[in-house]
C-alpha cells in the first residue's frame, strides 16, 4: 500500500500547484486572444467615415482606416450630382480629414452625400449624408 502512495505528504500541494499552473496558462491564453481580438488594427479589414460635427451643417468628415488597402477615393454629391472629388492615402490604424474646397456647409434644401471607396473595388463603398 505504502509503495503505491505517491509522495503522500506533498500530493495536495502538487495538485494545488497544478491547478494554479493550469489557471494561469488559461488566463494568459484568454487575455492574449481577447487583446488581439479587440485590437482595431490586428487582422482587421474595415474602415469608417464620419462627420466631425454631426449636429451642425458642417461637412468636414474623417476617414478612419483599419484595412490593409490604404488608397481611398471620395466624392461629394449634391442631390446626386458630383460636385467634388479627391483621393488620399491613409495608413492602417490612421485617420485623415479630406480637404474640401469652397463648400463647407450645406446649401438650403439640398442633400449632400459623401461617398468613399476603399481601393479599387467599387463595391467597397460607404456613404454618409446630411440634409438641409
Amino acid at each position, binding site marked *: 500500500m505504502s509503495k*503505491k*502512495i*505517491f509522495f*503522500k505528504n506533498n*500530493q*495536495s*500541494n*502538487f*495538485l*494545488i500547484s*497544478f*491547478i494554479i499552473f*493550469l*489557471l*494561469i*496558462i*488559461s*488566463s*494568459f*491564453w*484568454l*487575455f*492574449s*486572444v*481577447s*487583446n488581439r*481580438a*479587440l485590437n*482595431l488594427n490586428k487582422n*482587421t*479589414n*474595415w*474602415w*469608417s*467615415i*464620419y*462627420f466631425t*460635427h*454631426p*449636429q451642425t451643417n458642417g461637412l468636414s468628415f474623417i476617414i*478612419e482606416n483599419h484595412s490593409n488597402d490604404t488608397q481611398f477615393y471620395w466624392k461629394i454629391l449634391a442631390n446626386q450630382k458630383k460636385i467634388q472629388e479627391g483621393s488620399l492615402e491613409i495608413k492602417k490604424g490612421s485617420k485623415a480629414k479630406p480637404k474640401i474646397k469652397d463648400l463647407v456647409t450645406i446649401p438650403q434644401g439640398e*442633400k449632400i452625400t459623401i461617398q468613399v471607396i476603399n481601393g479599387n473595388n467599387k463595391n467597397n463603398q*460607404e*456613404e*454618409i*449624408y*446630411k*440634409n438641409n
Partner: protein
Amino acid sequence: MQASILSQILFILSLLLLVFMPGYFLLLAIFGKNKIISPLEKFIFSFGLGIIIVDFIAFFYNKTHLPITASTSLIGVFIFSFLCLGIFKIKSFPKNKVSFLENNLFSFSKNQIFLICLLLLSIVFIKTAYLTSTVTPTATDMGHHMYWAKLMTQTHQLPAYNGMPDFIIGEHIAIAEIAMLSKASFFSAFPVVFLLIVNLLGILTMFVLTLRIFKKKSLAILTLLFLGVLFAVSSPQAKFISGGVVGNILGNFLMPLAFYFYWRAFEHLDLSSTKFSEKIKSSYSKSFLALAIFSTFGLFYTHHLTSFIFLFITLTLIVLFLLINFREIRELFSKIKQIVFTLPVILTFLLGLTFFFFIFTPNYIKNEAVKTAVGAPSKSTRGGLTINNLKSSVGEARLALGFIGLILLLISYKRKNIGYALISSWTIMLLVMSLDPNILFINLPSNRIGNYLSYPLSILSALGFYSLFNPNFLSSISTKNSLQLNIPKKLISISFLTILTFILINGLSDSAHAFKQSSNFTPTIKTFDASKYLVDHLKNNDIVLKDHNYLSGDTWIKLFFMKGYRYPQSRSYFKRYHDPTKPREMCTLYMISNPGKPDAQKCFQKTKTDYLMVNPYYDSAQFKKLTNFDQVYNNGTVTIFHKK
C-alpha cells in the same frame, strides 16, 4: 506586450488578495493547522468563502456610508485577515483524531494522480479553447452584469438596480473590486477568466464532496470526468461562462460548498449516542455548521434561483432523513441539538440574519420576487421538461448512468448517512422541479432548473458506472450482503469498453462541435467603434436608441456611456413587441422600423431621441428617404443617424 502581461499579473494578484486571502485566514482561524480539512479543500474553499467575505465587507461599508474603493476593499480584507490571524494565534485548537481512512482520503496513488491531472488538464483545455471563440464582450447577460459592476467602480457604492429583482448584489461585488484593484478593463478577458475559475472550483468542490461522502477515490475521479470533462461546453458549463450567467456560475460553486459544510457538520450522526458525544467534543462539527450557514447566506446574496432550489433540496433532505430514521428520531434530535445549539452556530446565524434584514437586504426579497416564482406555470417554458428535453439538457450518457446510480444508491442506502440523503434529495427534488413543477407550484423556467441536475447526476453517474464494473463496491458500502453479484470477468470487460466508448462519444461531442466554431470579432469591434464616436460627440441632453436585433455586442454599448442601465434605449427582439397578455412599449420599435410614420414622430417627441444606431444592411433605407435624418457615421456594419 509588457503592459498586457503586467495587467494579467495584477489581475491574478487582485484575485489572490481580495478573494483568496480572507477565505484562507478564516479557515486558519477556525481549523488552525488541523488536518480535518485537506490543503486541497482549504485551497478550493478559501475562494468560495472569500467571495462571501468580500460581499459582507461591502455591505458593512454601504451601511456605514464608507466608499467602496480599491484601497478600502483592500483595507477591509486585510483587517479581516489580521483579525483571523490574531484568533489563530491566541486560540487553542482541539486535537482532532483523524481516522486512518480519513487521513488517507487525499493520498492518491501514482495512477490516480496522473488521472486527476489529465482530467483537470482536459477540463481547462476544453473550456479555454471554447472560450477563445467567445471571449470578446458580446454576450447579452454579461453586458448587463458588467454594467452594474462598472457602475460600482465609478460610484463606489452598491448599485440599487433601479428596483430590478433579477440582479443580485453578490454577482457583482467581487468582480467590481477586482476591476478596481487590478485596473482591468471590463472589455478584456477578465470577467470570463474569473467565471472560469469559479466554475472550475465548483467542479472541484463536487470532487471533494464525493470523496468525503463515499470515501472512494475512484468515484471522486469519475465525478471529475462526468461533471468536468464530459459535456464541458454545454450549459451550465462553458456556455454559461461565455454567456455571462454570473449568478448560476457562482451558485453552482456556493451551493455544493454549503452542502459540503452541512455534510461535514452532520457526518457523525450515524455513530451511537456515546460515540457521537465523544466525537463531537473533538470534532469541528459546530464550526462546519457555522461555515455552512455562512455559505448559505452567501448563496442567498448571490443568486435567487439557486437559493430557491437550495431551499427545496434542503427541505427534502430534512424530511427524507427524519422520515427514514423516524424510529430513532429522539436520539437524532438530541445529537443534532449538540451541534446546532452552540455559540459559533447561533452567532453566525444571528449575524447572517442581522445583515440580511438590517444591513443589506437583497433586491429580490424587497421586490417580492419569491411570489412570482411560486404558483401555476405562467408560460409553456415553465410547465416542465420532457425526458427528451432532460436528455439534451444533462446529456444522454449522464442521464442514463445517473438513473442507474440513483437506483444503486437507493439499494445500498445507508439510512443514517446524511450524505446519501443529500445526494438522493438533490437529484429527486431537481427531477421533480424540472419534470413536473406543477406538483410544487413552481413558476420558473424548467430548462434553467434542469441544468442544475448535471451536478448531482454526475456523482450518481460516477456511482452507476463504478458500481456496474466493480460489483464488490456496492457490497462494501452496503450493509446488505445480498448485493454480492457474480458476473463473468470477460463480460465485464466488454461491457466496460462499450459503455466507456458510448460515454466518451456522447459526452465529448458537444466539445467537438464547439471547436469547429469560427470566430469573427469584427462586427463587435465595429459596434464599439461607433459607440466611441457617439461618446465623443454626444451632448448631455442627447438620447440614443440602438438596435438589439442586428448589432453585435450591443448590450455592452451602455458601458461606454454609463448614463443608466436603460441608456441607450434598445429596440428589442421583434417577437417581444407581440405580447397578447399585456400592452408593450412600442416606441423603440416604431422609431427604427418606421421613423417617418406619425406614431414614430410622437415617440421621437416623447422620448427626445435624436441618435439612432443600427445595422445599415437592414435599417438604412427607411431613414434615407426622410429629410430630417442625417447619416453621420458609417462603418458598413454599424451606422448612426442623427435626427434634426
